[in-house]
């Protein structure tokens, strides 16, 4: 029979102001198995913990109940305390009489009665607790980084700096991501390529970093320390080992196509590298448009290649590798603003987006750094920027603020003026959100020094009058409706999750929110972790982030990943699901409902019939102890250690036993 000690905390006056803690302790003395009960001002304090340990010795206690705050705050504290008292740490239960009682009630008498019931439940449970042991799993010392933008690049560099191996899987033919498309970066106006390419080169040259470009993650199984990942290496039709990027092939390729990298403002060939600084500097053949692949004509690239690197027969290859941790750095995509018919996108060539404008600003871009009207290629002098296109719009767009549009619009307005001091910049905004180091100053400079006209209000309509774009908006500060005839309109479209984000989330067993953005384990205290141990988030796949924030989360995620990898073995929480194979009928409903992919099929030999049969098996390192399998199991073959059916039944019985026999 367990000898239970109950310790009721005042939490200063947090609890004691509403709950009669002395009475709770007094009544707890009468609960079955309780040998000692007392109250104390701060149980979590050192004297409080000493008291517990002293009483364990004095009264020979074998189980501890602390009635205090939420277990999410101090369960760990008291488990350790229990362990230090010489008991199994899982011989401890916490009764939450603060968050679930004193803080939410004001009737002292009723609250005290409720607190008594909460303590009663905890004592009933702790009496049936089993001693649980922490187990350990080995760690594969390699990190998978999904996405090769600035986020993935920085993460890889940091992982490598810590002496661990990293693998970047990038979907596009080159790493670099969105940042490679930018001209300059705010607020310092550094050239984006100048600060990005050294990092790209570093990644390429590092012995510890492996690049899989033009590749995609296809399947993820396993668990922290031991992820098994299948990666599809799409056929480039160019042998990476032979090609030295001389460029003969793409110079001679006869097929001209709109360049995705240049936002279709420029052209590329059917065999191409997306941009001059691409890493690796190896072209890919666009199989959809290649004349040889489609019509068996041409074949020029193969003929002219001095290194015989062209291989039309190359096929997709699926490789499998093992990783200890995964960093998700898949970034974002742009909101499709064609839903705003009033902005005339698609109808008017001169209505573009920030990314188009960015390419135009770039001196190595399709216009050679000239700001032109896509309609006729003439210089654009009057440019209207519209912010919050798809952001902060619950009706048709995303409810959130995309966070960087204010800044890049200011930057673009500034650069417009630098390119052509005669040009005029008008910015329609709702609020200016320039919360960053030197950001506010930057926006002020743009207005004050560069004379960009900021108009507070949304644009209602863009239409054409006498061959010019008319932008009709409102300046709410002056209370006037405003019409501006513009050469060019630049929409600051919202940053949104990639369309296949959910697929990846399900593959990795990480949650995502209603906007398909990946959810961190805790918004404040675990901002780069996910609920799946060993999977970390960085960059805009989690929420819109600018470059400094992205780089910061990349470093944070890599530190977390390296932290895991620095252990030879990882401890796992023993409060997880357990399958009783004697009862399991192998229907694997549990496997279907497990959000963490922690259940797999296992073949066993039945003890009684001596025949082989399938049963469910829990991977301890993946299980989070959520209990979904528990409820899906019809015969009740799955139990959750720390929350066993016996414990829960014990709790229910403790509450119903004395409440009269209503049968």
């Amino acid at each position, binding site marked *: 029979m367990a000898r239970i000690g109950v310790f009721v905390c005042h939490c200063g006056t947090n609890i004691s102001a509403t709950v009669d803690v002395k009475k709770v302790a007094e009544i707890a003395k009468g609960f079955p198995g309780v040998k000692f009960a007392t109250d104390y001002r701060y149980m979590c304090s050192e004297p409080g913990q000493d008291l517990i340990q002293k009483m364990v010795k004095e009264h020979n206690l074998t189980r501890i109940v602390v009635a205090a705050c939420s277990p999410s705050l101090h369960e760990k504290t008291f488990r350790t305390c229990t362990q230090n008292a010489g008991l199994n740490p899982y011989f401890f239960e916490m009764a939450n009489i603060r968050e679930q009682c004193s803080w939410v009630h004001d009737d002292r008498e009723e609250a005290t009665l409720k607190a008594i019931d909460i303590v009663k439940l905890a004592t009933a449970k702790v009496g049936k607790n089993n001693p649980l042991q922490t187990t350990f799993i080995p760690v594969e010392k390699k990190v998978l980084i999904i996405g090769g933008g600035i986020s993935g690049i920085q993460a890889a560099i940091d992982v490598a700096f810590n002496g661990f191996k990293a693998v970047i899987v990038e979907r596009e033919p080159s790493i670099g991501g969105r940042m490679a498309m930018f001209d300059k970066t705010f607020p310092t106006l550094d050239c984006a390529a100048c600060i990005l390419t050294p990092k790209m080169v570093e990644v390429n040259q590092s012995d510890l970093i492996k690049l899989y470009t033009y590749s995609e993650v296809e399947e993820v199984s396993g668990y922290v320390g031991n992820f098994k990942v299948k990666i599809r290496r799409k056929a480039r039709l160019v042998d990476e080992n032979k090609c030295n990027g001389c460029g003969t092939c793409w110079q001679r390729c006869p097929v001209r196509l709109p360049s995705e990298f240049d936002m279709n403002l420029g052209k590329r060939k059917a065999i191409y590298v997306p941009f001059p600084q691409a890493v690796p500097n190896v072209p890919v053949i666009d199989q959809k448009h290649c004349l040889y692949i489609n019509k068996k004509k041409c074949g020029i690239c193969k003929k002219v290649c001095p290194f015989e690197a062209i291989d039309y027969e190359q096929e997709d290859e699926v490789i499998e590798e093992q990783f200890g941790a995964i960093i998700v750095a898949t970034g974002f995509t742009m909101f499709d603003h064609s839903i705003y018919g009033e902005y005339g996108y698609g109808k008017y060539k001169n209505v573009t987006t920030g990314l188009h404008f960015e390419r135009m600003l770039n001196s190595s871009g399709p216009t050679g750094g000239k700001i032109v009207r896509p309609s006729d290629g003439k210089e654009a002098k009057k440019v209207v920027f519209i912010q919050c296109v798809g952001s902060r719009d619950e009706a048709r767009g995303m409810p959130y603020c995309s966070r960087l549009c204010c800044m890049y619009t200011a930057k673009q307005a500034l650069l417009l003026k630098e390119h052509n001091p005669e040009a005029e910049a008008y910015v329609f905004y709702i609020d200016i959100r320039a919360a960053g180091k030197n950001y506010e100053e930057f926006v002020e400079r743009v207005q004050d020094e560069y004379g960009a006209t900021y108009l507070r209000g949304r644009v209602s309509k863009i239409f054409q009058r006498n061959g010019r774009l008319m932008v009709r908006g409102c300046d709410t500060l002056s209370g006037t409706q405003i019409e501006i005839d513009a050469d060019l309109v630049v929409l600051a479209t919202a940053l949104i999750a990639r369309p296949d984000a*959910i697929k990846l989330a399900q593959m990795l067993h990480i949650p995502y929110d209603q906007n398909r953005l990946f959810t961190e384990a805790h918004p404040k205290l675990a901002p780069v972790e996910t609920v799946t141990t060993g999977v970390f988030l960085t960059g805009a796949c989690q929420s819109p982030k600018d470059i400094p924030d992205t780089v910061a989360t990349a470093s944070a995620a890599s530190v977390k990943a390296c932290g895991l990898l620095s252990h030879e073995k990882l401890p796992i929480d023993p409060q997880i699901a357990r399958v009783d194979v*004697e*009862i*399991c*009928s*192998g*229907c*694997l*409903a549990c496997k*279907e*409902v497990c*959000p963490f992919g922690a259940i797999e*099929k296992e073949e066993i030999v039945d003890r009684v019939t001596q*025949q082989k049969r*399938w049963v469910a098996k829990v991977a301890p390192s993946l299980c989070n102890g959520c209990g979904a399998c528990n409820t*899906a199991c*019809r*015969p*009740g*073959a799955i139990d959750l250690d720390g929350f066993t*059916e*016996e414990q829960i*039944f014990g709790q229910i019985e403790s509450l119903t036993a004395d409440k009269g026999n209503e*049968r």
Partner: protein
Amino acid sequence: MLEQLRKKAKELLKNKEVEVIIGYQKSNNNSFTTPCFIESEDGVDRLTWDEHCVYNLSLYLKEVKGKVGIVAKGCDVKSIVALMQENQIDRDRIKIIALECQAQVDQEGQILEKCRTCQVHIPGMYDELVRSKTSPSKIESKESDKEYSVLEELEAKSTPERWQFWQRQFEKCIRCYACRQVCPLCYCSECISEKTAPQWILPSPSLKGNTTWNIVRAFHLAGRCIDCGECERVCPVNIPLRRLNKKMEKEIQTMFNYVPGLDSKKKPPLVDFRVDDPQEFIR
């Protein structure tokens, strides 16, 4: 049809495609049938087929090892599909000799309730199909539209009335577990009703225990029951169990547009999660 059936069964045994065939044979007093297990070609003549072949033989699939042939009606094939979905049988070791079935009758010769709204007179999955030459239709096809008409009377009752109705039914239950034992989908090696630590369901035939048992069983079959109606047929105290399962089937069809036993590739909705699942019930 019988000739065809025996011929196909013989071939399967002869070619060693199966080791045993589960089928129907005449029972001792000849007016009914009983399940039989045939292991040799000369036993094939015992096979029979008429309107008394009510049994859902897929029940035996799990316990018969090795390569097995099974004589199955449309409704029985649905349970084979469900068993495949739930990892219980390996399709590769099973040969389905499917029979076109117009309707089955009860001991009094009345057409069974489930057959009146049957939608699978010709089974949806098979290796061999035995069809009748004439295809005489005993059933007005229109009736299949009224699949849930059996529920109308109950659904018209108020909640307390319905509760009273079921309490009266469950009171009769003697806990012989024939419903469970005859159900092809009640395959758990240990039933939740047998669990003693803790005890979820009171084991004795008290009203409380009976109610829990019958309702828990209905919940465990929700989204899985293929409506073979065997539980109701075998119940010695005539509890209308099919209505319970049918109601679950209807709710799930309305909510998830899913009918069990039709597609072995589909996931049953209660072990599947999708973002667009209806969630009104937790609001």
